[in-house]
């Protein structure tokens, strides 16, 4: 399935990517699984997407990492928010 991935904060900077449209295996069900799959891209990816380092938004709503996702979703991956 095809999804849009957005990156913000630390992972965007460290991985040098802000947005990508990507085809992911249909076997991936949760954001946790998606992060693990992206982590296979290399050491930097595995490091930056470690569980304690990232939060997720699915279609512009903050969600837990065990949240399922679906085709055509906009998934954002980012370091803990720190506004204000």
């Amino acid at each position, binding site marked *: 399935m095809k999804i849009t991935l957005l990156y*913000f904060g630390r992972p965007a900077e460290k991985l040098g990517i802000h947005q990508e449209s990507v085809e992911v295996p249909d076997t991936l069900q949760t954001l946790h699984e998606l992060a693990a799959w992206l982590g296979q891209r290399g050491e930097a990816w595995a490091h930056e997407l470690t569980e304690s380092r990232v939060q997720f938004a699915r279609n512009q709503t903050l969600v837990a990492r065990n949240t399922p996702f679906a085709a055509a979703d906009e998934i954002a991956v980012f*370091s803990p928010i*720190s506004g*204000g």
Partner: protein
Amino acid sequence: MSIAVQHDDFDFAAEYAALRNRHRETGAIVSFVGLVRDFSDAQTVQHIELEHYPGMCENVLAQLVEEATERWQLLGARIVHRIGKLHPGDQIVLVLAAAPHRADAFSACEFMIDALKTRAPFWKKQTTTHGSEWLATKTSDQQRAARWNPEDRT
């Protein structure tokens, strides 16, 4: 619009005046302004860079104003948050709440900034004399935000 995310500085006096003049029943206006501090953990701050998630961020801020308006008796509310490169002493965020009575204005203003800290998608990269780092959500901010959850109220 009751919210704004912008690179430009905001004019506190103009924002206050706009809210003050909106309703003649307004008896109380409470405001919060967050500023860039020059020290962080004993290190001199040179600048910070603020990034946001366009679209989602504006929606969350509008949602915070809506929640505050549903929960307290308000006559107006406003959130302005800056993005981009900011220096010590610069204004970061403004939260204003106008109400007939001050209890509502205080609670609404404090709720909005507490909830913003844990729900609005902003990221802050701080550069000190020791280098740059992305700041994480503070535990104290998570605790302050949790005070407003209905299930936690006593």
